[in-house]
């Protein structure tokens, strides 16, 4: 399985500011995903990070709020912009899946974000 690291592990931020979360994988992967888990909720997909093109966002998520970069096949960033307390969540990077969708899918250690 891929080894995935995320930075920062946790952060406490003031409303109106932005935070960029980094995801690093130890091998080249085709598919990278960003998920959010709000307190007491299950995981929800924010977007699929595509290498060399714009990310594909799920309904309810927009690029202005959650800009994503994917400069190569091992790295991606998610920025949470103009934060409000409602953005307090765990943000998780995930790799796997793929066109065939028969591949296992793994998650990074997560970033716990608290917005005051």
């Amino acid at each position, binding site marked *: 399985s891929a080894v995935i690291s995320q930075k920062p592990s946790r952060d406490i931020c003031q409303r109106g500011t932005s935070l960029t979360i980094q995801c690093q994988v130890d091998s080249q992967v085709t598919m990278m995903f960003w998920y959010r888990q709000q307190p007491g909720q*299950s995981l929800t997909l924010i977007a699929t990070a595509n290498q060399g093109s714009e990310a594909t966002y799920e309904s309810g998520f927009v690029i202005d709020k959650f800009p994503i970069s994917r400069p190569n096949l091992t790295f991606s960033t998610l920025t949470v912009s103009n934060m409000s307390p409602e953005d307090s969540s765990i943000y998780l990077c995930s790799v796997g899946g793929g066109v065939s969708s028969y591949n296992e899918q793994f998650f990074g250690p997560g970033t716990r974000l608290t917005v005051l």
Partner: protein
Amino acid sequence: EDKVVQSPLSLVVHEGDTVTLNCSYEVTNFRSLLWYKQEKKAPTFLFMLTSSGIEKKSGRLSSILDKKELFSILNITATQTGDSAVYLCANRNAGGTSYGKLTFGQGTILTVHP
């Protein structure tokens, strides 16, 4: 819209008990069903199921899929306190631009008392 429902939402047992966690799904383009264990932040991969009737087993954990009845179960035998966690079930969609997307259920909170 794809839907995944888990039951029970929470379960409290004692060490040594056997538990069965349920996951039912309604999806437009099924590809696979995955089970995860979440203790703190990161979900840990347990199983991926694509074919009906084939049990996957890892130690005290096992899982099986029924594609006709659209459900899966996760069994844990001889539970230990270390099994206390949230168990998540997720469907992987295979359709259109959503390929690879996981739709998660609400999770089952398992608490194992000594």
